[in-house]
């Protein structure tokens, strides 16, 4: 008998696993990230206004003088990315058993995870554009400017690549804590250091390429491990 194994498309797989389509997931993630950033920036600005007794524009200028504001910018997309990355739908989680019986089986799962990576990247780009817009309009200031925003995007790709390597860790506390520490270590240091290293974007390009290669390799390793130890267990 001819066997029939057709994984759902990336968009269908995303819709199936998350209940939201491709565009909805990207826009949703970007919206959460921008709102988180704005909330954190406003909070930081208020603290400076109250602490130093200065007005809003001056407080924003103060933030722009140091990379502290850039760290705030890193927090928002980084935390959201971690939360999405750690949703693994193992058999013991709600929906875990259903997803093992749908069309395409493991192929559909691979497409779902691939969709998650693409959505994270696209939402990061949208977030970067929004952060630059806020910088231009003066609502929130980025010390490193465009260079810092590009550094944030490329370092997130690298961080996702590294975290994918540790996703097989079964202990949820170790996995959660390890992911947060790794993600912030990579993205914060890159976002602050890369703009200082060079006036051009070559370090950014190198980080981006290295991150993309790392993400591709770690995904391959993750899928192989997941199939053997979680999916087929």
């Amino acid at each position, binding site marked *: *008998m001819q*066997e*029939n*194994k*057709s994984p*759902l498309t990336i968009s*269908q797989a995303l*819709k*199936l696993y998350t*209940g939201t389509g491709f565009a909805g997931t990207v826009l949703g993630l970007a919206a959460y990230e921008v709102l988180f950033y704005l909330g954190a920036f406003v909070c930081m600005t208020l603290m400076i206004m109250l602490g130093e007794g200065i007005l809003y524009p001056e407080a924003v200028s103060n933030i722009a003088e140091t990379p502290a504001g850039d760290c705030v910018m890193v927090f928002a997309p980084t935390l959201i990315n971690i939360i999405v990355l750690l949703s693994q*739908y193992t*058999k013991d*989680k*709600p*929906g875990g*058993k*259903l997803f*093992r*019986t*749908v*069309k*395409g*089986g*493991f192929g559909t799962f691979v497409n779902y995870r691939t969709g998650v990576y693409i959505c994270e990247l696209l939402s990061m780009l949208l977030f970067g554009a929004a952060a630059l817009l806020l910088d231009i309009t003066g609502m929130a200031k980025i010390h490193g400017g465009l260079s810092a925003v590009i550094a944030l995007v490329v370092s997130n790709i690298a961080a996702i690549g590294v975290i994918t390597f540790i996703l097989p860790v079964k202990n949820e506390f170790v996995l959660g804590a390890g992911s947060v520490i790794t993600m912030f270590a990579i993205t914060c240091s890159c976002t602050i250091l890369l703009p200082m290293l060079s006036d051009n974007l070559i370090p950014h390009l190198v980080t981006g390429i290295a991150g993309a290669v790392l993400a591709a390799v770690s995904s391959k390793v993750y899928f192989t491990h997941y199939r053997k130890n979680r999916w*087929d*267990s």
Partner: protein
Amino acid sequence: MENAVEIKDLTKKYKDFTLDVSAVIPKGFSTALIGANGAGKTTLIDILCGVSARTSGDAVYFGSMTDTDDDGLRNRIGYCSSANFFPLDWKLKTVAECMAIGFDNFDRARFAELCAKWKLGSPDEKKQKNMMKMSDGNRMRAALAAVLARDTDLLVLDEPASSLDPLARDQLCEMFREYLTERDGERSILFSTHNIADMEFATDYAIFMANGRVIEQGFVEDLKEKYILVHGDAEDGNRAKPLMMSYSANSTSYEGIALTENSANLEAVGAITERPTLQQLSVGILRKAEEDAGK
């Protein structure tokens, strides 16, 4: 007799547990998988539905299909696990949309009809509760509505009655009958249960499991011919006990299960024999398995 599934030496090895099963699920009937907690019922169901991989052995579905990764087979099996089958943030609308994406044979109108029948609301309503806010029973009803809204040949349900109230269990039994009679002789059901008394009406064939193995299987009517329920006064218990498979006693009486071939000898020692219910049969067979395992 044709079988919906033939299970041949199917094994699954864990550190502290081994499942080793050979059994059949007859085509056109409702089969109950009966066993104590930890007997291996869920493990077996998960393997049969492609949720877990087997260590060795085969399961042949519908005469020729063997690969649970095959979408053709996936579409013919309607599977539902015991708890939290859907993510907790899903609403009925999400369930309908996602089931339509995940399976070729999902009928949204039928799903809406079943949701209405079980007073879950409509998947088309604007304001809906998500799964997290539903009671355990309603979550199970939603999962059953989703699986019954698919045009399948085999239903495999893990503890479908465990979180349902008595009325809903009765409705579930009726639905089993409707499902089987809709395409008489073509469709089959496999379900696991602890509430065998409530599900007796829906059970044609029974597979008893203990410690990862099948200890008895057969059509319920045949099993009721094979075994008898034995009871009597406590003072006669010691004479009846050697002839019985399972035995329990209190200060005034004893009760248990015995093979029908021993009925004359049992009556000779003052025992009363009766045709057992499936519940009594289950208790007797599982008690015997527990005693054997303890030896």
